[in-house]
């Protein structure tokens, strides 16, 4: 690990860069999976009394707007050269954190559907700008060799906290928690930005160091631009498929008390502690896989585990409909989710250079993550309004999951015939 070398060389500012990045990303992701994904639904349905379909439509709109803002902002960052200016990026990140803190405070002002829509739109803009800004700091703060481990740490912290800390999935609980975390965070950003320490000046030079600069999958001489790089297209498709399957299956399960009350939403701490711990183990496994093994194997594992999980849920629904859920399936689910989250945190920087990371990340996260969420939400609503039973819903998700697993399997293992010139080149 490069971090250990930095410790022995007493490069404390570089070590601080790790802590800064991990803290920023973990809190940002925690905010996303708790307050945004769960809290907004609770606010719309329970507090404002909006119908499930209306809230789902708002959430789909939120996903689309975030997607648009992220791509537009990422594009601007790359082409204006902002992606290479660390201090400017840090100032932007501070602005995003400040905006999100103020928006979190303003949650109590939402009393009707209009103010709910305005809040969602403003948050979409903040997150849309935040994604390319924060992700692009990977090439400033985290050496290439440590990206898998750092992504694993971020995922572990965010998911462990999200499972263990919340006592209830309500907007009030999430708001209080986030304010306790974000307010000091914003102050910390301000101190670094306007304080006397020269930490940012040192960190701003790091992207020029070869151990930070060029992503693991960018070959020498490549600009790492989207048009030059077919790998990003394959990645977007793969990540899209993972996000889509996860979201489509989990959306319906969150509405099924039998699957949630003894597991993710258990009033006792033990089941949530177990799921949180599995998230940590899954993230660590993915971190090691990402660093030490072929990515193809990692993707195969993720798709395979998702297929097994949905197979398990479908089987349970067919045979033991209405019974309680054990922790076996959530355990596999947590493993798969942690593994793909690690990939999502690490891979975009590794197919980019410091100059292209903003755009690549924005396109990658926006097209795979937010578009998948938008489409899976839309499809789930469509299926529900068509009166599709839970068993049938899970069976379809399972079929899709197996199909995608097979597609990845064929893509990876299908023999490729090398041309004569390639053969000569290889030899």
């Amino acid at each position: 690990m490069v971090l250990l070398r930095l410790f022995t060389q007493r490069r404390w500012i570089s070590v601080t860069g790790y802590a800064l990045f991990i803290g920023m990303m973990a809190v940002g992701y925690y905010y996303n999976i708790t307050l945004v994904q769960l809290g907004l639904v609770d606010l719309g349905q329970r507090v404002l009394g909006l119908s499930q379909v209306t809230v789902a439509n708002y959430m789909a709109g939120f996903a689309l707007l975030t997607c648009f803002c992220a791509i537009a902002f990422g594009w601007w960052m790359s082409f204006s050269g902002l992606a290479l200016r660390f201090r400017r990026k840090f100032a932007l990140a501070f602005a995003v954190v400040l905006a999100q803190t103020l928006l979190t405070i303003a949650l109590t002002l939402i009393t009707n559907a209009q103010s709910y829509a305005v809040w969602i739109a403003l948050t979409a803009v903040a997150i849309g700008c935040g994604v390319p800004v924060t992700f692009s700091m990977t090439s400033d703060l985290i050496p290439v060799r440590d990206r898998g481990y750092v992504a694993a740490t971020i995922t572990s912290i965010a998911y462990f906290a999200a499972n263990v800390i919340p006592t209830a999935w309500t907007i009030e609980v999430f708001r209080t928690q986030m304010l306790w975390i974000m307010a000091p965070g914003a102050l910390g950003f301000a101190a670094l930005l306007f304080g006397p320490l020269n930490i940012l000046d040192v960190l701003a030079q790091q992207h020029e160091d070869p151990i930070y600069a060029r992503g693991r999958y960018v070959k020498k001489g490549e600009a790492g631009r989207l048009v030059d790089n077919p790998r990003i297209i394959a990645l977007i498709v793969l990540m899209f498929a993972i996000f889509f399957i996860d979201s489509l299956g989990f959306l319906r399960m969150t509405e099924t008390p039998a699957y949630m009350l003894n597991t993710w939403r258990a009033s006792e701490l033990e089941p949530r502690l177990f799921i949180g711990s599995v998230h940590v183990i899954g993230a660590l496994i993915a971190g090691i896989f990402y660093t030490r093994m072929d990515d193809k194997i990692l993707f195969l594992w993720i798709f395979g585990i998702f297929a097994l999980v949905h197979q398990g849920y479908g089987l349970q629904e067919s045979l033991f409909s209405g019974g309680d859920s054990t922790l076996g399936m959530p355990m596999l689910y947590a493993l798969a989710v942690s593994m793909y989250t690690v990939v999502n945190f690490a891979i975009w920087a590794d197919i980019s250079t410091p100059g292209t990371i903003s755009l690549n990340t924005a396109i990658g996260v926006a097209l795979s993550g937010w578009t998948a969420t938008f489409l899976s939400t839309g499809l789930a609503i469509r299926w529900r309004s068509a009166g599709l039973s839970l068993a049938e819903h899970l069976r379809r998700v399972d079929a899709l999951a197996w199909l995608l697993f097979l597609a990845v399997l064929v893509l990876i293992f299908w023999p490729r015939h090398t041309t004569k010139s390639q053969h000569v080149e290889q030899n």
Partner: protein
Amino acid sequence: MNRTYASYRFIVLFIALTFLLSACQGVDSYSGRIIFSGEHHLRGEVANYGDLVILEGSVQIAPLSRVTGSVYMIGGELTLFGEVEGNLTILDGSLTLGPESTINGDLNLGSSDVTRQPGSQILGEITEGFALPTEWVRQAPTLSEQVRSFLLQTGLMLLLALFLRRFLPRPLRRIELTLIEHPLVSVTVGTLSAVIGLVLFIQLAFTVILIPVSIAGLALMFLLVTVGWIAIGGLLANAVEARLPSRIASSLLYLLSVSLISLIVDGLGYVPVIGAPLVLLSASAGIGSALLTRFGYQMYTPSEDTDLL
């Protein structure tokens, strides 16, 4: 065999297995419900389709509601006001039969508290002191049984160790090298493979037709774990041999080391708290190193800069 042809065959075989696995969801021949905890009030004309298994928690079946199968109670509480079409078997827990409750089959009572209100009907037989057949209940093994089991386990391990050393020394050496050079990756791959493998083989068993595959898979996992322990034994033998002043026959040292590993694995089972995790860790390392080296047929080299797709 041509490698390309082998790849095609592998893909076709996997697709066939996957379709068979997916088919198990279409089975509607059995249905039931398992209650693990919490309070459950079952209402409606049919309160539960098929069998009802209560492990813990509290269940109430409303008047005029029926369970179409049998009820099995391992623990918890059951208050029956409605009807059970099959048998009601209670190993432990408490049962209350309401005034209009009906059990169409037998009532089998174990160590349970039963409160029966006037008007409740049991159409079958009542058996008291019901317990699982003694052969189903696992008794603590005696010392001689434990010794016999250990000797059998060690004997089989030694036989396998001798076979591998005699006929497959290179694959075994690759597994040993991977264990010593990449322990973290070995444990990681092994842990994930073991967990997912177990789930997969259990799900395969639901298809009925794939039960032999499930059994073969579990046997393979067991074999990989044993090979891993043998590899650890081999490493121990090498380490000891390098430090010994006088030469001992390496085969003897090897067999002694493998026996020692067998003894340690067996002994760790009796160590509280850390014993079981250490056994699992070593088992995972064995599975992982075997898989990383493709069962010993190629050296594992960590990926530094791999191409995606």
